[in-house]
């Protein structure tokens, strides 16, 4: 029950802030939409006409996933930096629930809320391009959930290093391009990326949305890789976060002010 109350409190906080700063939220949505438009028009002008439809579909899925990864992973880093500077990070660290649980529920809360934006962005993209993707919720959902678990792991890793490194902002700027690489490069081009966080999941979702692959057609092996990927990256992310928390407590870094 404590977990549930913690989750509710963080979803509510994120929702209130998103709603209270609706113009910012809308500005973010439109910025991402216009960047997508630029990408779409680029494909139209310089892309190969024979593969234009598939390229556009790839662009939509990749872009949506990049947005999701970017908002989930990068946001938590910025939140930790801001909270450290504000002084609230110390308050959160004094919760008997443990700060890692608070951060995990924050990640969940931002994911849930950003998912609404993702869906809006997805439909806006599909309407604009006239390319309708296969949205098979039953197939996509289990893949997406496992993919998100590994994203949360990376989010915890980023949150951890954001606590102990005061100049992490520059890394967060670079991180968005690393995430772009991970979400845009298909596994067929670089198969080793399957062992990287969430790449396998993005590839599977791409297959579902573009090639119409169903749940039955996805092999157990793919799910095993996805599952191991999720568990390993979450566990590693959590271990790094807990280690960073200990370092911060030893060096007195929980406040950045």
């Amino acid at each position, binding site marked *: *029950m*404590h*977990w549930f*109350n*913690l989750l*509710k*409190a*963080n979803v*509510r*906080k994120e929702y*209130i*802030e998103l709603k*209270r*700063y609706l113009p910012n939220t809308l500005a973010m949505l439109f910025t991402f939409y216009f960047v997508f438009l630029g990408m779409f028009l680029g494909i139209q002008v310089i892309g190969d006409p024979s593969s234009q439809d598939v390229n556009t579909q790839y662009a939509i899925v990749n872009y949506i996933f990049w947005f999701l990864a970017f908002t989930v992973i990068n946001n938590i880093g910025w939140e930790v930096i801001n909270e450290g500077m*504000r*002084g*609230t990070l*110390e*308050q*959160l*660290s*004094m*919760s*008997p*629930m*443990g700060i890692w649980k*608070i951060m995990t529920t924050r990640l969940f809360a931002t994911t849930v809320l950003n998912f609404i934006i993702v869906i809006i962005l997805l439909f806006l993209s599909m309407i604009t391009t006239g390319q309708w993707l296969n949205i098979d919720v039953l197939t996509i959902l289990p893949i997406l959930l496992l993919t998100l678990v590994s994203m949360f792991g990376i989010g915890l890793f980023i949150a951890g290093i954001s606590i102990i490194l005061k100049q992490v902002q520059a890394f967060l700027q670079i991180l968005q391009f690393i995430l772009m690489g991970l979400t845009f490069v298909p596994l067929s081009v670089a198969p080793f990326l399957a062992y990287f966080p969430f790449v396998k999941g993005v590839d599977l979702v791409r297959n579902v949305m573009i090639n119409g692959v169903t749940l039955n057609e996805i092999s157990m092996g793919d799910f095993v890789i996805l599952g191991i990927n999720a568990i390993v990256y979450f566990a590693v992310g959590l271990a790094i976060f807990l280690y960073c928390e*200990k370092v911060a*407590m*030893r*060096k*007195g870094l*929980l*406040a950045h*002010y």
Partner: protein
Amino acid sequence: MEPIIKVEKLKKSYKKRKSKEIVKAVDDISFTVNKGEILGLLGPNGAGKTTTIKSICGLLKPDSGVITVNGINNQNKRLQALKHISAVLEGNRNLYWRLSVRENLEYFAGNRGQSRKDVAGKIDDLLVKFNLKEKENELVNRLSRGMQQKLAIAVAMLAESEVILLDEPTLGLDVETGYEVREMLREIVRDYNRTIIISSHDMDVIQDLCDRTVIINHGNIVTDDKVENLLRLFEVRAYSITLGGLLSEQQHQLLLQKFPQLEYTPDTVQSILEVDLTKSEEIYDLFDVLKLEHTPVEAIDRKTVNFEEIFMRIVKGEKQHALV
């Protein structure tokens, strides 16, 4: 009385970032805080107060030493110990400025695993108690500094922990707001049975609210005693003597040899001698010197010393006060 907090042989050092020099923030300090006690933690800047407070809160890992909160070791069982502690460490900075007063209270309660429904009544009570009811839906960034400070304290109160730590609760507040916050703290002391540790530069806060004070300087405890004892100790031995004329140079030198802290304000009509005696009998030595030139004594008054003066004297090492 049973101690709720035990700090034993606490040591904490930091490495300076550029010079890599090791700085001892707290060096082997020990003290206890009893249940229901209001303890003042005093010391000049860099004395080690905040390090001590943060170590008790479990926000800093000591190099060595043990801190127990309600019998729970706050390093080995940190989360369990945190159930018994809440703190206001940076006053209004401990709040979410984009959330309203009520939303802040609800959010922090949620972070301790409490549901909004469970704490609704308590929040209403606190809002009334802290005169924040009318502002409950106001965003924190629109509140005055004093109100933000009150809200930060209300958040700490909502946790219903036995121990509350307040680091500089009146820092940066104007005189009026500082007074208001002090009044509120006095109410908390009176109406809620909590153990409170206050770290402050504001001597009035310590003198008004605290039962006992621990004075830290250069990472060491220099005094641990009741506020009233400290006041009495210094009050008893501080004298102001009005003389009906001037002291001779010889008398002045003799007095300075005997009482190095002596303050002499010469005046042909009425000179003033201010002196702190380490023993009551020393007054006779002083009279012996005055008698040499038959200097007339017009009045002898016991000097009233305020707590700030006592603090300054202890920190400067003028008085080595025995640790309790």
